[in-house]
């Protein structure tokens, strides 16, 4: 154990060896037993000391492979350097050059396969777990800034003494907007891709209207990702920030139905349209019994619990299915969210059934760890072949088959191979299918000139332009089910292209 005070006082003079010797700062979390019964955020965030110690671990290496690992290329060493110096406002400014939603990304990005994967420190210490905890630092900076905005006088004063730099008032900390161009941009969908485009395009001085089908903005960040992983207040703040920038939200509007895509361009006079509608069609397994009561797509299960707030049965009108023993099918983040949500909604036992093993799970490492700590049971190399009922139309269990791992497949992961004759019955009253989504075919169906591939993903060029004039697309509707940050990366690219196109037309 080193002298933390000493480290923090001499942070600029530390040798690489000294930096490497600082231990990884663990994320403080709610106790697993306690959090499994509440909806509050699991990870509590670094303290200031922890953040500075973690930042001091960064070797500030010249190659900065972390930047290439970030889908939106945040200048990671620069912002971490500022955290080490306790200049959080400067750190926030650096992040915001590339990422407008750091409080969200710091919480939901799979850093261990992105920025933290190539980290020189992690490589030197021979473990990706020992890489600089970039995501946690990003979250720390974003939360620090949110706190400033919420209580400017108090926190601003404190920051001034801490950093020797007077904190900017909340308004001035917000984004500068270019003079009005007279151009109008429609953003369809208010998920991570849409919000990113809206911000970037608005900053260039264009008028922006976001169309959202649901009653609240945020897309997957409000209907899909649970409160305990991403507090909805953060998403709301981001939407409010856009509103203060002059972005207008039109909720309860389904483009393709309420407003046909053509009408946005031809009648409403939008100069550009960005389609960021997400991948909204849940996949099922096509096995017998999926029509039974008690079988849910993870989308439905999580939407009921998150967006419709069915977890609060005293207040919410949306009912929840009473589950005691739940099977969640899948190994991604959505599967983890559904499993942990089921536990919080009162299930006595929650099992994740996954065809492969822990090593192949696509979920963020932290989510898998948290799920395990909370008591979720994992049945690896297991896949249901049938869902059965006891004759009342409701789920009574699954017939599960065992698997073993064979040769690697196209994804590089070892292919699961079914073991014949290994079928066993396992009793469950609820089955949640979390096997990903297909693209919603609605826009393609109502807009024939919009070219899509056989999975209904919208086809785009390197600048996110679709086959339709003045229409760009990005996020899951292009990528298939991906991540928040990849959607934002696409949004940034689309916004740059839209801004260039509109500037050219001026």
């Amino acid at each position, binding site marked *: 154990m080193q002298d933390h005070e000493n480290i923090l006082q001499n942070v600029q003079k530390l040798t690489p060896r000294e930096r490497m010797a600082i231990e990884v700062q663990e994320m403080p979390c709610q106790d697993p037993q306690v959090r499994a019964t509440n909806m509050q955020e699991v990870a509590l965030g670094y303290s200031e000391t922890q953040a500075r110690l973690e930042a001091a671990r960064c070797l500030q290496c010249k190659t900065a492979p972390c930047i290439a690992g970030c889908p939106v290329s945040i200048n990671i060493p620069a912002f971490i350097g500022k955290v080490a110096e306790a200049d959080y406002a400067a750190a926030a400014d650096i992040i915001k050059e590339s990422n407008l939603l750091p409080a969200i990304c710091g919480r939901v990005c799979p850093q261990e396969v992105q920025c933290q994967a190539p980290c020189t420190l992690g490589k030197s210490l021979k473990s990706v777990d020992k890489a600089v905890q970039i995501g946690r630092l990003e979250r720390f900076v974003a939360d620090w800034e949110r706190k400033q905005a919420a209580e400017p006088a108090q926190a601003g004063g404190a920051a001034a003494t801490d950093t020797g730099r007077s904190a900017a008032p909340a308004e001035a900390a917000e984004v500068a907007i270019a003079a009005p161009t007279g151009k109008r941009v429609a953003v369809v969908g208010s998920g991570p891709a849409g919000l990113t485009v809206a911000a970037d395009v608005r900053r260039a001085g264009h008028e922006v209207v976001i169309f959202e089908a649901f*009653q609240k903005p945020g897309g997957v960040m409000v209907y899909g990702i649970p409160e305990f992983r991403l507090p909805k207040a953060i998403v709301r703040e981001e939407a409010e920030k856009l509103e203060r920038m002059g972005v207008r939200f039109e909720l309860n509007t389904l483009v393709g*139905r309420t407003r046909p895509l053509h009408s946005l361009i031809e009648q409403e006079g939008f100069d550009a349209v960005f389609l960021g509608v997400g991948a909204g069609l849940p996949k099922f397994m096509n096995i017998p019994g999926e029509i039974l009561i008690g079988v849910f797509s993870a989308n439905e299960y999580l939407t009921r619990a998150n967006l419709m707030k069915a977890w609060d049965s005293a207040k919410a009108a949306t*009912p929840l299915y009473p589950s005691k023993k739940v099977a969640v099918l899948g190994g991604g983040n959505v599967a983890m969210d559904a499993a942990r949500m089921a536990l919080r909604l009162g299930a006595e036992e929650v099992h994740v059934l996954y065809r492969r093993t822990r090593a192949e799970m696509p979920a963020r490492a932290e989510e898998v760890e948290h799920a395990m700590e909370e008591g979720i049971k994992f049945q690896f190399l297991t896949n249901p072949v049938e869902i059965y009922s006891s004759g009342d139309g409701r789920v009574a269990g699954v017939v599960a088959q065992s698997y073993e791992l064979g040769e690697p497949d196209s994804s590089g992961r070892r292919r699961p191979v079914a073991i014949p004759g290994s079928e066993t019955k396992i009793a469950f009253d609820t089955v949640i299918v979390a096997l990903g989504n297909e693209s919603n075919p609605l826009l393609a169906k109502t807009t024939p000139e919009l070219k899509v591939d056989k999975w209904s993903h919208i086809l785009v060029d390197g600048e996110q332009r679709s086959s339709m004039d003045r229409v760009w697309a990005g996020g899951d509707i292009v990528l298939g089910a991906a991540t928040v940050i990849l959607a934002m990366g696409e949004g940034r690219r689309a916004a740059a292209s839209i801004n260039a196109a509109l500037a050219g037309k001026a």
Partner: protein
Amino acid sequence: MFAILKKQQLSAEVYRIEVSAPLIARERKAGQFVIVQTDVEWGERIPLTIADANAETGSITLIFQTVGATTHRLAAIHEGGEIPAILGPLGNPTHIENFGHAVCVGGGIGVAPMHPIAQALKKAGNKVTIIMGARSKELIIMEDEMRAIADELIIVTDDGSYGRKALVTEPLKELCEQTPKPDIAVIIGPPIMMKFCAETTRPYQVRTLASLNTIMIDGTGMCGGCRVEVGNETKFVCVDGPEFDAHLVHWDSMMSRLRAYKSSEDQAHEAVHAEGGCQLGQAIASQKKRDQ
């Protein structure tokens, strides 16, 4: 916000509201529906069919029966009040063409969504026969509107208090036995009625469409809560429907799924009954019937 321009109580548990929703009124076609929420923070999202619309005045007409928490809350909003969220029009429009002779069967409040479909079929040049059925006289809705469209209107009630004392399947069968038989039948009503209508037309090979109203959340294809078995495939009512070949719909599993949350709906319904709301409604409704 969507203002309620006009509100009428049609029977003890059935309401008709005209709501200001200009975009939906402009875009909607026969066969489509909306998702309604009475409270965007805590409310549920429920599908309601569009009974009528006026693109000029920018209004849509919704007819609903108070069966769960949300329909009760909706019934409690007064004329001049507002519905916080309506999303639509959703679902695929009915395929309309001149089939020849079209039979439209509406049971209970299924008559409401049938209205624009019958209207569109008539406009396309079809001979339109409408069969309307209800438990009793006071549950017959939209009679004048349907009479204005129909070449032939047949009203049946279970108890014989109005029209023929029969189930809708009886006149439907008689029509199927005629030569030439009807070219198409469209059926909308309680699932059990639609199931038996499908069984009625099946032996006569009369093409039959049913419009399904299942449990939904988003209504845009995202949740899959509305899924039904049609033929050997799983379909989403919200994006693949709401209309399907009635001879291919797996009615028993559809009806089973509608009962998934039955106990909580009953609680909401009983809670309102316990407050006396419905008895009052019933009294008002029967008073109105007497006055007519």
